[in-house]
């Protein structure tokens, strides 16, 4: 079994329901996120549009975080999920530095690394990840990539040529796919990130783990 995720960006409307469901399900502390939806505005008024991109751990087949972790706190489980053992983590933040997707953070309460686990605890009980359940438009498709009859496999088959991953050149082989993505969605260097400017606040950086 190889679990994977696919987000159809044609369907995503940026409601952030997945983000909130994830926060609640996993008790993700304030100022940290396992999953978030990034808004990128494209074009010049009046020819503009807004894109929405949910970003989470990619559960890579060749995960840099797993490789750099000195104590195997980050490890693969049988279904392909890259899981984390917070009791073992020493908080070296090597994984935070190694992840090319910025998907790992230091939990300010436990002072250990944390990230999306595809809700491994729910999956173990045959439930879907919280973000999948919360999505009102079924933009999140989750399932077994090894099973050709799974929804995710069928979706990938149906959208051949339109399925993308983030930063494929890094050789991480992500198990997280996007349909309907473009360079501005998936490449962080393809959009301006103006310091001090976002819709709701002017906070651009937060301290890692609440200190340093």
């Amino acid at each position, binding site marked *: 079994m190889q679990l994977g995720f696919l987000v159809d960006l044609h369907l995503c409307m940026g409601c952030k329901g997945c983000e909130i469901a994830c926060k609640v399900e996993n008790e993700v502390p304030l100022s940290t996120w396992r999953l978030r939806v990034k*808004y990128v505005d494209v074009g010049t008024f009046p020819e503009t549009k807004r894109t929405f991109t949910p970003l989470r751990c990619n559960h890579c087949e060749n995960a840099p975080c797993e490789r750099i972790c000195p104590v195997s706190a980050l490890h693969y489980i049988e279904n392909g999920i890259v899981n984390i053992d917070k009791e073992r983590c020493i908080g070296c933040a090597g994984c935070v530095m190694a992840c090319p997707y*910025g998907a790992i953070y230091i939990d300010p309460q436990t002072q250990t690394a944390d990230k999306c686990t595809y809700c491994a605890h729910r999956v173990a009980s045959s439930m879907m990840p919280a973000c999948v359940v919360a999505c009102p438009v079924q933009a999140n498709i989750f399932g077994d990539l090894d099973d050709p009859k799974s929804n995710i496999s069928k979706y990938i088959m149906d959208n051949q040529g339109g399925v993308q991953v983030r930063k494929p050149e890094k050789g991480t082989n992500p198990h997280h796919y996007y349909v309907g993505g473009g360079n501005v969605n998936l490449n962080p260097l393809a959009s301006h990130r103006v310091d001090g400017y976002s819709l709701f606040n002017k906070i651009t950086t937060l301290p890692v783990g609440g200190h340093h």
Partner: protein
Amino acid sequence: MAAHEILAATNAVVTLDVALPGTVWPWLVTVNMWAKSIGTGVIFMLMLLLKKYPEKAENLRFPTTVVAIIFIHIFLLFTLADLHQPFRMWHIFFYPHLTSAITVGAWMATAFVGLLFLLAFLSFVKKDNASFDKVLPWVVALAIPVTLYTAGLMSQCTARELWQMPTESAQMIFAALLSGSAFMILVFGSKLGWEANRSLSNILALSAFMAFTLYMSEYVFGPMKAEEVAAVLEYIKGDGPYTVMFWLGQWIAYLLPMLLIALSRASKSESLLKLAAILALVGLFLVKHVWLMIPQLLPMS
């Protein structure tokens, strides 16, 4: 930011996102690299001096070993201080993951400390110089991977493309040679005589020249290889946040020491050499700090 993918036609702007994480590896890691360079570098220099100038370096065995022990412990202390769960450090030894440069580095550094204490025992308690000289080559051999492992760790940081193993390994070795020779000139130079000081200053000048050349090569040619490198180097160009510190580091660590060493040749001035040594040690910290910080400023997602 110079993200060359951004087109005027798309004018893509991030309008809502979470705040980016601040610096993940802070100045504590700079101290780690700086102290490790000195701790391993003085051992390289001791070996050289004992081979080339045995009578002058006769009494340096124990003091140099003490210097190495002090700086390796500064390195270890700051490594520990940088952990968010420092009391779990023992996990590295009981749950080791050998694909990680951190694990391999921690094990090698521990063995290195053990060998340094053996050297101290042989020179101070047993006063057995013959045994000391037999053990020293093994300590030097281990000092090489100990000083290199941070390069491996930086290269394991996927998407921080500025940090490439071949270049960073060379920079780590040059840093050890530069800081080791500078420290020996500064602390033991007056006991060594002009010839030994000249040899040490040659090493200092050459390692400064090579390190400076590598940085300039990265500065000029790096942006042609990867968009991440191009974006990261913008932080040390123009009015980038680390431009001043980068050039201060290059001048203080490399250019001024090279100039002072050249001037000292004419006058045989040990004072100029000592000044060059102080500048090299101070500048190395700045250079290392800038190179550690700038890839961390890049948004990853």
